């Protein structure tokens, strides 16, 4: 059985959902978010982090789009876990996304639980968390909200939009929805649609959450319960899909955890079991179960070609954006074939596209890791684009 530690202060995470320790922009009744579900979300708020300085021409802004379980804390200490930002290898002074050169904006997506409006936020109509009354949101809704944030910050054109996995979906949606506002786009380990297999994995995760008796139809915060077991199991299952057989074997093999022999029980005898349980438990500290349902749903619904009569190239017709598509050899969740489909569509649209597949055994999560080749390619691509854009090397 997966047991979350009793010491976790869940109220801290709940507070973060409404009053985050991040800059915040609130959009009132005059600026509703028009959702694909044909309802307006209003009022709503977006929490975000920024790094670096916006130049006088406002031409050096880089938007970072986080993945399913990421958040705005890409390059600063996480306020709940106290851990380093999730993309410190990529973002920071002297890093490929150099905060000495670019003004980096990292928002929390709508539907998430770290300060942007989502199912864990208080519904102003009831005074309670939204729960399942929160409207279903899409990747396009997330991007629409980000565009409103960018407007609010007074930025017309983003120098680059960067993200992996669900973040990569947002990058592609940005390029399709606002081509004139995106100078360069870097979708990493991404796809233009969520595959049947990936929807299937998500469904297993959602069912794990909903099967937890503490989920209470999504009203757990009101009823004072917490579906941590269900969410932890969902995370454990998902986490396997982010790695690879080779990486798991390299890291854990069949080694035992703190013992020399099997216990002939269902304890976590194997290191890999112990690791997954730890992943599950630490995840529930910082993530909201309903948010997990909503964000996985948003990914499931993503199908860029469906918005243009099934012809993906039409999503990028006449685009002036330059693209850098990156995939990883051992990523079986968003395999290279998905990135190739993006590249084919971009070529058909006559777009300026670079595509690299990086050899690694680290699976889907490789985009988050300190992969020298990944870092070199992102750096080189951005420097090349920066030269074309006329960005000075360092912001004065």
């Amino acid at each position, binding site marked *: 059985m997966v047991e979350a530690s009793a010491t976790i202060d869940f109220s801290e995470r709940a507070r973060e959902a409404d009053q985050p320790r991040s800059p915040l922009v609130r959009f009132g009744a005059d600026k509703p978010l028009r959702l694909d579900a044909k309802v307006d979300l209003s009022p709503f708020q977006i929490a975000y982090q920024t790094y670096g300085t916006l130049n006088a021409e406002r031409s050096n802004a880089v938007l970072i789009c986080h993945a399913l379980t990421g958040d705005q804390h890409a390059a600063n200490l996480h306020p709940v876990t106290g851990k380093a930002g999730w993309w410190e290898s990529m973002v920071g002074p002297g890093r490929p996304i150099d905060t000495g050169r670019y003004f980096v904006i990292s928002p929390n997506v709508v539907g998430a639980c770290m300060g942007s409006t989502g199912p864990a936020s208080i519904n102003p109509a009831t005074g309670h968390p939204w729960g399942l009354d929160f409207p279903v949101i899409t990747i396009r809704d997330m991007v629409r909200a980000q565009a409103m944030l960018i407007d609010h910050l007074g930025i017309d054109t983003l120098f680059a939009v960067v993200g992996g996995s669900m973040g990569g979906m947002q990058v592609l949606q940005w390029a399709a929805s606002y081509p004139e506002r995106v100078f360069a786009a870097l979708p990493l380990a991404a796809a233009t649609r969520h595959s049947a297999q990936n929807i299937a994995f998500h469904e297993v995760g959602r069912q794990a959450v909903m099967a937890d008796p503490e989920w209470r139809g999504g009203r757990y915060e009101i009823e004072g319960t917490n579906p941590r077991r269900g969410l932890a199991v969902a995370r454990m299952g998902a986490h396997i899909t982010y790695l690879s057989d080779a990486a798991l074997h390299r890291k854990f093999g069949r080694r035992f955890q703190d013992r020399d022999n099997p216990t002939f029980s269902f304890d976590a005898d194997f290191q890999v079991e112990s690791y997954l349980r730890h992943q599950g438990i630490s995840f529930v500290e910082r993530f909201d179960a309903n948010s997990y349902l909503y964000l996985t749903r948003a990914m499931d619904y993503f199908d860029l070609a469906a918005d243009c009569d099934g012809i993906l190239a039409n999503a990028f017709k006449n685009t002036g954006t330059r693209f850098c598509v990156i995939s990883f050899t051992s990523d079986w969740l968003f395999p290279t074939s998905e990135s190739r489909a993006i590249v084919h569509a971009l070529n*058909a649209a006559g777009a300026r596209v670079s595509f690299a597949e990086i050899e690694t055994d680290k699976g889907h999560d490789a985009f988050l890791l300190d992969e020298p080749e990944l870092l070199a390619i992102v750096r*080189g691509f951005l420097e090349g684009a920066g030269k074309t854009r006329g960005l000075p090397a360092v912001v004065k």
Partner: protein
Amino acid sequence: MLSRPKRDLTMAETARTAAGARVDLVLVAEMVERGAKVLDVGCGDGELLRLLAETRDVDGRGIEISREGVNEGVAKGLAVIQGDADTDLADYPDDAFDYVVLSQTLQATRHPRVVLEHMLRIGRHAIVSFPNFGHWKIRWKLMVDGQMPRTDNLPDTWYDTPNIHFCTIKDFRQLCDAIGVRMETAVAVDAWGKPLRLSAPWWFWNLFGEQAVFLLSRKS
């Protein structure tokens, strides 16, 4: 009629050539109009794309089969994708480029004719450079040694060479006739990288040209 490309590289550009750019790449660059949109098929680490960007102000894209080549090119800021000339050219729309370049790669493709046809569908012009298997040294080696020739330019043994479709200048001209393309310009260079006299007859080129570069276009 067949003509020689204008030698209009500037002094600085020529100096760069002397400083190390490959002779066949310089010959290709001379055939490209300034500011053109170019696809380099089999672009390696992007040397030609770089030369074209620096000397011809070209909007260049590349396809390269090796992962190392691609990643190096992208890290240099070039628009390069990993792909295979034999399979991936079909994905490009008609008339997407002014020039499609295939430098020293034709002989490594599985279907050279199909590749060439795609090049002339995707681009208004195609530029093809290849090692001439009709060069006297190669003929001599085959005749004397009775073995697949290996030279400084083509050092691989027959069993590990990527070059599966060698041709001579004469063969290539026949292919162009078969497909019905117009040969606009051609250059053959000798073993020292010196272009052969244009007025020389084709048999002379075929015997003494170590490499050849052809600028082709569709017969309209």
